[in-house]
């Protein structure tokens, strides 16, 4: 019994740790906070019911992201495409949340992100924001590593185009961003 209990406990801990980034990913998929929260709930229930099949020590985060993503796309197939791309809602909702950053062009950035093709946005979010490797992202999306890389490249190109930046130089890391990143990371 002790084994089962400690498995459960560890499962819960890891699940809880992953929730904030799972939720952020859900927001990028659904485009709204409300739908994202519903989606996360469904994914959590599903993951919970399958916890026996999860092997501790393996990648909980990738496992949860895969469950959530599958849930999202199966709902989309059922309900049609209305779920995604409610134009503008993403950015509207996000802007309600004060981002304590003071970086003015964040809103433009979100609008541009929202204009990306779904598969490209998903790829760039998984790798550049959620911290997965190309291989993990490929597993989550059920595609080849090369596909992920090319989606990310296209996403980058499109974002640069939308934001009117030619290359990296205009938009390189700035000291205040680095400071903010350090700040948010240490919270």
């Amino acid at each position: 019994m002790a084994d089962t209990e400690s498995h459960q406990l560890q499962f819960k801990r890891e699940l809880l740790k992953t929730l904030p980034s799972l939720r952020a990913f859900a927001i990028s998929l659904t485009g709204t906070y409300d739908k994202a929260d519903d989606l996360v709930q469904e994914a959590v229930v599903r993951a919970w019911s399958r916890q026996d099949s999860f092997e501790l020590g393996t990648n909980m985060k990738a496992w949860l992201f895969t469950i959530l993503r599958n849930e999202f796309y199966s709902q989309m197939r059922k309900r049609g495409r209305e779920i995604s791309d409610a134009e503008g809602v993403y950015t509207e909702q996000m802007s309600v949340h004060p981002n304590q950053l003071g970086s003015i062009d964040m809103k433009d950035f979100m609008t541009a992100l929202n204009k990306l093709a779904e598969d490209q946005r998903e790829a760039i979010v998984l790798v550049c924001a959620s911290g997965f490797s190309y291989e993990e992202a490929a597993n989550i999306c059920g595609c080849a590593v090369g596909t992920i890389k090319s989606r990310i490249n296209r996403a980058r190109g499109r974002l640069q185009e939308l934001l009117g930046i030619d290359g990296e130089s205009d938009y390189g890391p700035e000291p205040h961003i680095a400071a903010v990143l350090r700040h948010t990371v240490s919270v």
Partner: protein
Amino acid sequence: MMNKPNAESPKKRLNGGLPPADVVQDGIALRLRELYSNIENEGIPDNLLNLLEKLDEAERAQTGGQTPEV
């Protein structure tokens, strides 16, 4: 002390982690990371925490006996 190449600082264990070492760290990647850090730092909504508690309770009730149901 762990000494992984991309774990220069213990602070980097944050949810979401940092992008893998082979990802180009340009302005786009940084902005994206910044945006997502913000969302992640909003915390977990109450309804989700409530759900977890309910699941937990249901599980306790179920495994209160001897063998957990599969």
